[in-house]
């Protein structure tokens, strides 16, 4: 009798907890998804619905005008292509260089490698604002230790090209690269040493051990780094607005969207210049910018969520 009552009490507790948990998760999911839903509903609204008190989420007059507007102002297709090229290139290069460095720091110990790893930690800790000005000036008159002036006679201006991104990612010093090196190092440390030694005994050199044994085992870490690097490069405005001034990539286009929009409206029909309308087009622009990322995420999220658990970021 007592047993049964206890059992039912426990049962009740469990149900209650499930309910609380459900409410919590549903609520917080709503908080996260709300801005996206908001933007989606704003984007498909007609201008007439903007001030209508009846319309909250589902508009009365559907229209794709905002999309058309935002696409022309942002030069969307070209921007999309540019951004894909930039993010893709930096992502692949960063992943390669960080994997090499991470493996070296994890397994290929040499004199002073611990000291150098402290340097990696330092790159994570120093805010990029501290070093951006000297980097900017360095890139403006890029000389590679006086090497380039020897050949061409003058320094090269690398600003407003993709070279800063390519150079920094090739040398594992791009945006948040220290973090990626750290992730790779932790992961490679988690792979048993015996695997490596067995490969060596079977006649594999260090290079082929790395490329044929270690890398295939490090897929979770690689996926994590690829995704993070792609997304952060896509969204980054700090370096992008510093290095690129005229090239059209997503983040520069987005940050100049309000400005371009107001110019366009001033040139056209002046009565159209309404701050709320501008905000509406801007929201559509943001939606267009995150759309490719969201689609990408839908495809890789399963893999991503599973893989991060085995990444050893936890170390």
């Amino acid at each position: 009798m007592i047993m049964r009552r206890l059992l039912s009490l426990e049962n009740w507790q469990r149900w209650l907890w499930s309910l609380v948990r459900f409410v919590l998760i549903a609520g917080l999911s709503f908080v996260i998804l709300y801005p996206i839903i908001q933007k989606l509903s704003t984007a498909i609204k007609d201008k007439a619905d903007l001030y209508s008190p009846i319309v909250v989420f589902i508009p009365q007059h559907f229209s794709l005008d905002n999309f058309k507007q935002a696409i022309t102002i942002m030069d969307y297709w070209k921007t999309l292509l540019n951004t894909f090229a930039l993010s893709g290139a930096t992502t692949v290069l960063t992943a390669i260089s960080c994997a090499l460095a991470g493996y070296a720091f994890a397994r290929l110990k040499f004199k002073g490698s611990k000291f150098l790893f402290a340097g990696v930690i330092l790159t994570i800790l120093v805010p990029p604002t501290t070093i951006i000005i000297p980097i900017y000036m360095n890139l403006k008159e890029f000389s590679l230790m006086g090497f380039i002036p020897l050949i061409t006679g003058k320094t090269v201006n690398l600003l407003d090209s993709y070279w800063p991104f390519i150079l920094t990612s090739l040398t594992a010093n791009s945006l948040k690269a220290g973090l990626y090196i750290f992730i790779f190092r932790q992961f490679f440390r988690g792979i048993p040493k015996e695997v490596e030694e067995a490969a060596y005994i079977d006649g594999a050199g260090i290079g082929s051990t790395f490329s044929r044994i270690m890398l295939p085992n490090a897929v979770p870490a690689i996926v994590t780094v690829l995704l993070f690097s792609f997304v952060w490069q896509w969204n980054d405005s700090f370096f992008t607005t510093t290095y690129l001034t005229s090239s059209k990539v997503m983040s520069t286009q987005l940050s100049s969207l309000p400005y371009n929009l107001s110019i366009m409206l001033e040139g056209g029909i002046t009565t159209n210049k309404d701050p709320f309308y501008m905000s509406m087009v801007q929201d559509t622009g943001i939606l267009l910018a995150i759309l490719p990322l969201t689609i990408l995420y839908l495809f890789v999220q399963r893999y991503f969520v599973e893989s991060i658990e085995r990444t050893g970021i936890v170390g």
Partner: protein
Amino acid sequence: MSKISKFSVKQLSYTQQKALWGMLYVSPWLFGFLFFFFIPLIYSLRYSFSSIKANASGMSIEFTGLANYVEALTVNLNFNRTLVESIVNMVINVPLIVIFSLFLSVILNQKFFGRAAARSIFFLPVILASGVIANLEISSLIQMLNEQNASSGSFINALGSDELARMMLRSGVNETIVSYLTGAVDRIHQIVSQSGVQILIFLAGIQTISPQLYEASKIEGATGYETFWKITFPMVSPLILVNVIYTIIDSFSSNEMTALIKETGFTNFNFGLSSAMAWIYFLAIMIVLLVSTYFISKRIFYQE
């Protein structure tokens, strides 16, 4: 005999080979570290102690001592306020984000219907809430309009933080704690959107805890509350430090301080002042990092 010794000179030992390859593999990073990090760091330190003027023959750098620092701290109108604000914001937000993400990762680790969907929603901010999008979102007028509508609506208001605050004050909770907590409720979107990576890290950590520990504690009759404090919490405590550091670093990317430093440098072309500001900011963050690391690492439980 000589043949053998020649052979052994050519053939490096395994450790030596490893060291050689290690240097080879590290070299791209080292190159970039020197060119895109270390030398700029030294230069920035030097700029911060000098006044830089651009003239016809290029740039002239003149050593002026601490003038830039003095200007940043005493003359510049915005610097002190922005620095204090961004540090205070960081100190307020970091514990909230860490506690929140630990709590959520414990929940997301349990088995329930729709767990995969919930997880992918909670990691969505990792992708969306960074960089330019987050900055623009703040300035969205539509959002503001809607928020105003929402706050005048009776339903949201009834569940709002005012009621909660009154309830807690009546039950005798300290006023500062109450305002801290209600502030957290009001900023829930900001907190949720900044804790994606932290949830991931905690979740990964929780999954490495061996299930035997939980089984044993269940047999001994521990409640869920006890298992959390006696098993989960100590086991993930090293990650609390990781997450605190990550949260602090993550706040660099978008705050007013960064904007101010960049504006001073690139709009007003006062490179010296901008570098000095950046160094003060860096030192302030270092102090926060060191203090928090010191306090947390004393309490961390390591298995070894």
